[in-house]
């Protein structure tokens, strides 16, 4: 057995003991209200009616934690008003800030939490092109999109690195959400196996794929459009290092994005393991588990050049 990858990050966090303790605790159960079918306010009344306890998440109206039930237990879930989703996984769609009527690419969309959240933020108007390379994972994506009542979507199956817009009448996306496959260190509270399965070789091969997918997203997005890059890992090799390479290769820049008020975040890092990164990567957002009692996350907002 190799080293625990979390050891690598003790120099990055403000309170290593609290960081490690949070990573050892199970994650709270959170749900997102599906605003395509019901408002957050009406959904809370429905949960009150049926006696299901919930706590609001301080930084987002449409997120609730369930202290003593599973997401699928309630009538509200049966109506398709709730979707089980970890709270930090709602960040990339918020950073994307999609508008009704736009065309948005979700490059690695399955099982669809972020794609359906994106469609909800667009009031189910426009086209969320939800892509994934795996047929099995697409079936979960389609099930979720149908259950949540999303009509503003097209589902495709392709390798995101060489994605073609051929089926469509448009020639560029307004926005793209690039939530890539990653080493998933930030999901350790849900799945501790990510630590025992971790290898540096895997991280490096993922980083190559991530770079290629993000490059393709920048190319496929119109000038002035927005691309959000996100992972659920702490590994700088898969986060800032990927941004650094894409900034050098493509016409884009990292732009400021204010995380929702009430969510404690840290900036991206500009140096790691002897490497220095483009100073723009500091505008990215890191979320450590101990700061808000969540999973770990990384998110950056990029603007495509003219």
């Amino acid at each position: 057995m190799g080293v625990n990858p979390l050891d690598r990050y003790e120099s990055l966090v403000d309170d290593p003991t609290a960081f490690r303790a949070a990573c050892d605790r199970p994650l709270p159960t959170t749900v997102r209200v599906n605003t395509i079918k019901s408002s957050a306010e009406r959904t809370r009344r429905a949960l009150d009616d049926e006696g299901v306890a919930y706590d609001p998440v301080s930084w987002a109206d449409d997120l609730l934690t369930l202290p003593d039930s599973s997401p699928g237990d309630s009538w509200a879930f049966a109506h398709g008003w709730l979707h089980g989703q970890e709270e930090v996984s709602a960040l990339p769609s918020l950073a994307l800030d999609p508008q009704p009527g736009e065309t948005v690419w979700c490059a690695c969309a399955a099982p669809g939490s972020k794609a359906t959240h994106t469609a909800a933020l667009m009031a189910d108007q426009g086209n969320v092109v939800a892509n994934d390379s795996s047929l099995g994972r697409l079936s979960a994506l389609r099930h979720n999109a149908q259950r949540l009542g999303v009509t503003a979507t097209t589902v495709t199956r392709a390798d995101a690195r060489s994605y073609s817009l051929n089926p469509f009448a448009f020639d560029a996306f307004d926005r793209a959400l690039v939530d890539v496959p990653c080493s998933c260190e930030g999901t350790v509270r849900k799945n501790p196996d990510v630590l025992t399965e971790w290898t540096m070789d895997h991280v490096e091969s993922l980083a190559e794929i991530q770079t290629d997918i993000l490059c393709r997203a920048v190319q496929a997005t119109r000038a002035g459009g927005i691309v959000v890059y996100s992972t659920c890992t702490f590994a700088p090799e898969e986060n800032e290092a990927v941004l650094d390479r894409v900034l050098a290769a493509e016409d884009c820049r990292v732009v400021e994005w204010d995380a929702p008020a009430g969510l404690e975040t840290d900036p991206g890092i500009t140096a790691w393991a002897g490497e220095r990164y483009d100073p723009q990567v500091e505008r990215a957002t890191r979320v450590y588990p101990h700061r808000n009692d969540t999973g770990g996350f990384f998110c950056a907002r990029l603007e495509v050049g003219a």
Partner: protein
Amino acid sequence: MSESSDAENRSNRFDRLPATPAEREVPGRVARSEVLDYWADRYGIPSETFDQKTFWEKGAGKIWVVDGDHPSPIAVEGLGMTCLRTRQEFWKPTTDFVQRFGELATDCVVVLSDDEAARFMSGDEQAVAWDGDWGYLIAARETAGDAVPLGVGLYTYGTLDSMVPKGRRR
């Protein structure tokens, strides 16, 4: 863009429904106007609800509703959501469609008690009090002051048979 040029239904792509029966090229394919009339006439769902939506067929009789428009035919894995099964004597709305748009319905909505709703969601058949049309009804329950759809039930001879698909039962 025009409808499918080779005038047959294909299972690996989506074809937009013709606007009216007069524009039909593929035998048996329903027209958009017929779909809108069905929602309005049977369920009272206003046709304007779908002003920004287009309807598509993929696979024999399976109708999909999507926001906005696309080139037709289009070869993708999914386009919006399935909404209706046609090419059979009685058309059948999907669970997902009635959950999404069924709150706008004024007719053919049977409101179940929570006990009845629980039986309905487990996929069972049950006796219900209903003196309206027979056939496919929207089954709903009261919550937060509204009658909120759960799915589709087939009503015949005093009995409501749940059409909730296996993956949505509880």
